[in-house]
């Protein structure tokens, strides 16, 4: 089974999953414009309820917004985007919205969600699983890779997604050093193209069949869909 561990609720999502041969997906609200995340989260929940066997909603929140913690009570998981929503991921106020469910963090953005900043939050909440997008770094020179590896080493409760990671040696290094259970396939659709993103796992010469199965789906089922009976 293939699970896309991060997608966004836009028109065409299910068709894109079908085109890429993806079975299930975590779905998050895109950046809310003109309304709050309470409304955006409701829309995502409605979308997912129409495809309960395929789509799993994660709630998005701006931790600095009034009443933020109350808006995400009961969520299956959280999605935080410090760059788009303008907060520092290790700001103390973020602690209030972390309540034990998995937290996906848009990672690698300068000043607000660098790998070591995400690691600070993960260190404060050792019982919570944190999922860093983009291999915990998003830099076309590979300049963030060392900090991503340091963060993975320091935080056993941190895993990283494959989204947009062009460096095959980095993905292989994460698996070789920390195990395949620390890497999750994700496309961040529609930001990245699932047809390309899947190849980063499927064509990587160093991954054996068990590692591929873990990265493409089993890890997401275990870490993100664990309360799910479907």
């Amino acid at each position, binding site marked *: 089974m293939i699970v896309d561990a991060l997608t966004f609720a836009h028109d065409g999502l299910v068709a894109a999953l079908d085109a890429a041969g993806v079975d299930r997906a975590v779905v998050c609200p895109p950046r809310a414009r003109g309304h709050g995340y309470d409304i955006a989260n409701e829309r995502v929940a409605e979308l997912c309820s129409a495809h309960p066997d395929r789509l799993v909603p994660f709630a998005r929140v701006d931790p600095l917004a009034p009443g933020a913690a109350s808006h995400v009570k009961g969520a299956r998981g959280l999605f935080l985007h410090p760059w788009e929503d303008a907060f520092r991921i290790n700001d103390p106020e973020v602690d209030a919205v972390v309540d034990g469910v998995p937290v996906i963090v848009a990672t690698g953005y300068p000043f607000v969600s660098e790998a070591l900043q995400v690691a600070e939050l993960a260190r404060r909440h050792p019982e919570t699983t944190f999922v860093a997008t983009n291999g915990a770094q998003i*830099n076309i020179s590979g300049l963030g890779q060392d900090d991503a590896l340091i963060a993975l080493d320091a935080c056993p409760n941190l895993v990283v997604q494959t989204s947009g990671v*062009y460096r095959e040696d980095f993905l292989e290094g994460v698996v070789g050093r920390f195990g395949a259970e620390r890497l999750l396939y994700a496309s961040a659709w529609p930001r990245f193209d699932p047809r390309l993103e899947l190849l*980063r796992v499927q064509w990587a010469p160093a991954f054996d069949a068990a590692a591929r199965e873990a990265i493409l789906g089993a890890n997401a089922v275990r870490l993100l869909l664990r309360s799910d009976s479907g």
Partner: protein
Amino acid sequence: MIIDAHLHVDDIPALGWKLAAGDCVRRLDEAGIEKGVVMTIVDAPEVNRQALELIAEACAAFPGRLEAFARIHPWYGDESVALLERAIGELGFKGLKLHPVTTIAHPAGEDTLRLIRAAAAHRAPTLFHCGDEPLTTPFAIARAAAACPDATIILGHMGGYFHVEDAIDAAERHPNLVLETSAMPYPAKIREAVERLGAERVLYASDGPACSPRIEVEKVRLAGLDAESERLVLGDNARRILEAVR
């Protein structure tokens, strides 16, 4: 014929990186690619005085498979220019590669422009690392394109993750800019670039061997170009640029 316009050969013990010419050729073979352009990770004369020799030896070990670009640090004035002249004039290199993150030299600084012009005198292109970091953004490199209208300037990674639209905009304004696809993760942007600039101005590359040339070729195919455009992007454009060097 497919040509990969951007691969690396180097040996940097401090980083634990050893990128061998044989690794490049093996990965080209996996992807059905006839020829690759190789360059070092660091620059001559510093931090590697032997950077040109390292690349020349790599190309000599695989005749007909590898072409060379010279990474040269712009700060060294006459010495930098002499290194470039030796690379192109004596060693048969086909271009100049600049990575301003490693050199802290602005793309439109006088030292850099002097090197770009020296390469252009041989009709040799200058490949810039073009991503999201200061000194490497499309509009910074566009200043060099404006200052050196006779030089072919290639935007490697065509703007990285967050500057791809800027790269296409800059190339629309400066006809001597060429976009190079390596690592940039959006197939649809390759198609947009071809539609807005013409297929002659988009160049396939992988940034291998740490990146997969095979996946990077598939990325171009996912762009859904017509057959003629795809042929230009995957190989004919690079061949035309390489063959023009004298």
